[in-house]
């Protein structure tokens, strides 16, 4: 018998490490800023967010109060800073459960298909034909206003998007040869699903998560407008904008600065989302 050893091939030089795109870096930098404000508001804010100052009601921006004061004489800058934690919390809690639940369920039904998919599909249909905001308002009205109940309400509805995204992607990935290879290699369905399919199918959900986070904050603001959002004296951007709307003509700073903060957070999440979409895409 002839033995032939193919010479070991050389592998192409390792490609240079791919740096994340600037969008992601800027996004992460902004996130760091937000996190700093959320974690150390005391260090950053010049005043207490809740203390009144009857001497300084509705004062415009000045050296002492760079963002001015509100109708209680509270320092707007300090409130914007203290609100960061609340708003990041809103961003996380309005999306965390829908993300986890929707993604796992999507993976599962996408993989199993058939009746499980059909059943969840029906439920999802049911949820989407309900007008979202109205449903949230109704749920918040049932459970009472406040952030926790808002989280519950949003979660009851929000998982559908993640379910859809992940389910579709898992169904796609399921067709990929590596997934079939897993079956031929005798791997258990659980392993194929969790170790192979899910990591490759979760990217759209993660990218959507970022958009969803800013939507979550906005929803908080909308509920704030209807009085169902964060409860006073908690500072929260959306509620601050809503509370400031009566002063838009006379004290623009009350709603403008929290509005800017909202935008900043939106931009941050969106940049990170775009960046992640790029960074998480496996290279073929």
């Amino acid at each position, binding site marked *: 018998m002839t033995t032939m050893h193919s010479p070991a091939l050389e592998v192409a030089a390792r490609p240079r490490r791919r740096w994340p795109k600037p969008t992601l870096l800027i996004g992460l930098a902004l996130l760091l800023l937000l996190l700093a404000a959320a974690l150390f508001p005391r260090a950053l804010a010049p005043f207490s967010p*809740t*203390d*009144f100052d*009857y001497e300084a*009601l509705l004062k415009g921006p000045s050296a002492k109060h760079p963002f001015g004061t509100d*109708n*209680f004489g509270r320092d707007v800058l300090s409130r914007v800073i203290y609100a960061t934690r609340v708003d990041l919390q809103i961003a996380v809690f309005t999306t965390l459960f829908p993300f986890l639940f929707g993604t796992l369920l999507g993976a599962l039904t996408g993989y199993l298909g058939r009746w499980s998919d059909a059943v969840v599909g029906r439920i999802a249909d049911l949820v989407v034909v309900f007008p979202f905001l109205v449903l949230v308002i109704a749920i918040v*009205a049932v459970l*009472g*206003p*406040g952030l926790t109940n808002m989280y519950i309400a949003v979660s009851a509805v929000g998982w559908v998007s993640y379910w859809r995204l992940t389910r579709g992607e898992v169904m796609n990935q399921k067709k990929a040869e590596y997934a079939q290879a897993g079956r031929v290699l005798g791997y258990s369905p659980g392993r194929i699903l969790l170790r192979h399919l899910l990591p490759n199918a979760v990217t759209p959900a993660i990218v959507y998560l970022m958009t969803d986070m800013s939507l979550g904050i906005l929803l908080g603001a909308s509920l704030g*407008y*209807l*009085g*169902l959002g964060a*409860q*006073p*004296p908690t500072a929260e951007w959306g509620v601050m904008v809503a*509370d400031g*709307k*009566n*002063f*838009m*003509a*006379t004290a623009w700073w009350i709603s403008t600065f929290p509005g800017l903060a909202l935008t900043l957070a939106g931009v941050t999440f969106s940049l990170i989302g775009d960046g992640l979409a790029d960074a998480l895409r496996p290279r073929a």
Partner: protein
Amino acid sequence: ATRGGQLTFGRYADSLFLDPVLNDANLDIWILTNLYDTLLQPTNDGKGVQPGLASSYTTSKDGKSMVLTLRPGLKFADGSALSASDVKWSLDRARNPEAGAWNSSLASINSIAVSGNKVTLNLKRPDPTLPAALATFNAAIMPQKLFTAAPGKNDAEKAKAFAEKPIGSGPFVLSEWKRGSYMVMKRNPYYWKKGDDGKALPYLDSVRFEIIPDDNTRILKLQAGELQIAEFIPLSRVAELKADSRLNMTLFPSTKVNSILMNNRPKLNDGTENPLSDVNVRQALNYAANKDALIQVVTYGTGKPMKSYMSATTPLFDAKQPGFPYDLVKAKALMAASKYKNGFEVTVLATSGNADDLALLTALQQMWGAIGVKLKIEQLDAATKTARYRANDFQMRTAAWTNDINDPSQITTYYAVFDNIESVHTGFKSAEIDKLFAQSQQELNPAKRAAQYQQIQSLYLKAAPIVYLYETPYPVAMSKKVKGFFQIPLGNNLFAGAYLEK
């Protein structure tokens, strides 16, 4: 006064149901008298009554009957004659205990007799509140024929049908109503009252109500000239609009009192000890609330401190009532004298989305913090709040009150008398007040009645079942062209004498 033209009035919400007897909401009440006239009318200052459809009334010596004389030639808006039988029918409907929430105001009537243009009310007992009751919206006179001709099996169904196209004897008649959007009332050509030019009122051809729920939008629309009047201006913007040279920012005196209701019962619904059952605590909370500061922060200086549980515009209000002037030292002393020296935590129910509630409570959080009371705010939508309240399932809640009738008895039955609704569900009960009130309800001598009321107000103050806050006016912004418009302390918007200057 100039005649003609349409006045556009921006409302924050639409009316619901234009039946004088079966409706329940201020949204209806406050415009209803423009459509349905009453026998007597409240005066614009809210202190008394003046002739309406009835040109005069007399009360018998024993106070057990009252005779009203109708004006001659009265007509409904469709031109049909308004007769004494319409009056009897209307009042009988209004006092039917099975119908509506307001029948109790006419409960003293035993029977009604009519002859010619005279209406005789036979009473069960003397009733000093009756003239005021006859000047109240639910005692409006409706056309019996038209009403009974309306489709429907029973009164409720007929009322629904009739209320869609109501015909009354008020200065205006409904001509168009697009629910949630706008409502147009046009001039009733048969209205009895004459203007300063000697011709029949009203001056205006029509009034158009636009429904604009958002405060900012309402103001913007007024400033843009699309409205001539905007109601419910947020107090925070009063100063700004006062400065606007095109506008007439008016604060109409009102019967509105803002207070915090406390649960006075020894135990809460869940069985726990209730600190608010201690009168020391209640008084301490009252003294610790800095009304002047609150008036600044919440009402932007437009309010006045509350001295009695009733507003200063209410008849028989006792001007000598001291109220609870801000006194932190006294408040601390009272706390020290109570069982709760170290303070306690208390939850207050607020109406979600109500900016004033929030402003108020956030300020109170601070003020009461000074005496060791930690205030937690629980925001509820109005229906939930009401349900909790009705079940006595609350510690504190925000509350505002306006009178519907030109008499102190209404607010007193609610606030101070246990029997009606447990003293606005505070659970406060004073045998003395109950007795005084019962007497006053039959006291025809004004001076004596005033003395009874003075005593009631003092007793109430001492028991402090509520936190006395402030009275607020009705903030209405009008174009400078608008003249003669009135919102009386009861809240009724009167367009009969309103006109638009050219």
